[in-house]
């Protein structure tokens, strides 16, 4: 797909998708003139198949499948370097958030599952406990990603250093937290939020 020929026409360019991204991110996509500064400073560039500037370029051409199919958006570290230095005030970090949201909602057209899994667990933790418990997060991640022994060597030392808590309790206001989650879901169901 990455190298296949692209036929451009009013039909093949999904400009509605681009509008959605612009709306979610609050940032213009067309402003970008491909100077490449975002990719030049991106710490994650070497891990991405589409460098950040190419993501924007694909958006300009309405090629959302190509964008979402890649791993690149999941390899963004949200370090905001691109947004900070963009000469055109394109908020690429926010565009990345928007793209991940759209990809997330579309239930994983991307092959990148590990980052998505970590995110999912992280958010689930918040819903369940109100706060983050790193031990639990790591353990469940390893369990679910099938990498049972990942960071196995780190565990004991972290434990002895008092960095991992085995026991954790739920927030007192866990009900209010659950309400936030469910009300957001409700908004989405009603189509009042994206």
């Amino acid at each position, binding site marked *: 797909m990455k190298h296949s020929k692209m036929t451009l026409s009013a039909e093949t360019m999904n400009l509605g998708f681009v509008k959605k991204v612009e709306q979610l991110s*609050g940032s213009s996509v067309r402003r970008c003139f491909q100077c490449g500064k975002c990719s030049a400073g991106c*710490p994650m560039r*070497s*891990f991405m198949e589409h460098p950040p500037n190419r993501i924007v370029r694909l958006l300009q051409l309405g090629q959302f499948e190509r964008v979402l199919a890649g791993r690149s958006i999941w*390899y*963004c*570290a*949200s*370090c*905001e*370097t691109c*947004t*900070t*230095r963009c000469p055109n005030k394109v*908020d690429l*970090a926010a565009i990345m*958030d*928007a793209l*991940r*949201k759209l990809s997330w909602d579309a239930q994983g057209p991307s092959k990148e599952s*590990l*980052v*998505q*899994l*970590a*995110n999912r667990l*992280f*958010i689930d*933790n*918040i819903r369940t406990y*109100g*706060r*983050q*418990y*790193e*031990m639990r*997060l*790591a353990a469940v*991640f390893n369990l679910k*990603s099938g990498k049972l022994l990942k*960071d196995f060597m*780190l565990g004991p030392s*972290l434990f002895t*250093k*008092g*960095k*991992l*808590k085995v026991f954790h309790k739920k*927030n*007192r*206001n866990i009900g*209010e*937290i659950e309400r*936030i*989650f469910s*009300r*957001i879901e409700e*908004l989405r169901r009603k189509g*009042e*939020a994206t």
Partner: protein
Amino acid sequence: MTPAKNILNYSYYPGCSLHASAKEYDESTRGLFKALKIGLHEVPDWLCCGATPAHNVDELLSLSLCAKNLELSNQVDGDLAVACAACFSRLKVTQHRLAENEEKRHQVAYALDAPLALDKPVKHLLEILATDFGLDRLAAAVQKPLSGLKVACYYGCLLTRPPDVPELDDCEDPSIMERVIGATGAETVSWSHRMECCGANFTLSRPGVVLKLSGEILASAKRGGADCIMVACPLCHGNLDIRQKEIEEASGRHYGMPVFYMTQLLALAAGVSTSKLGFGSMMVSPVSLLKEKGLL
């Protein structure tokens, strides 16, 4: 000098990490503020800010969680002091985004089932120390000058970025960490990777990323002639300290570079008992370095 504001009082949002992997950050922060006679009162029932994973896939959730925290913070007097760079960033971004976007404001208000109360000033510890408390007073409070200690101040991504949000310092050439630690007599080194990304939360999902990026940071600090690195973010600390041994193994280079939370060093200088600074929790032990410099 400035008679006003002699007594400072803050509400405190530690964030999840400071209750777990970054407990030494929490301990030393409390110790330091006590020594400086600055009031610090933890917000009851605070919840996770959502951090990167939440805004990565669900901005509305992220905004709502932070808005909830801001609401909760009103239970306690004083501006909201935040230690974790990521929490700080999320709280500030939330204030920012909701201020400029009415639609999102309505959505969040609905999610919280309460009118929004977002106005409490959110301040990072650095700002409190450098501006509210003042560098002069900080210098005056030093009991054990850190002279001779060469510190590489590491800002990471979120303390200063994006440019118009944290408003902590110049987003490309900040100096607030250097100024604060400089008040203790420590020597700060000039180095290249002060603001490069450490790999952040890929530590869980893609540790290889962290090994590469944090490795470059350690190498840069070494080149800069630093004895140690000072950070203000638990995630950065985790990547640079906890994963340092792995980085050394992967790169075949030895660093042995202690990574301090800023409050650990400040509290040390302010004469807080070393037992309360959590040096024992650090994976790369600072003991020999501090002894060598006559600080232990």
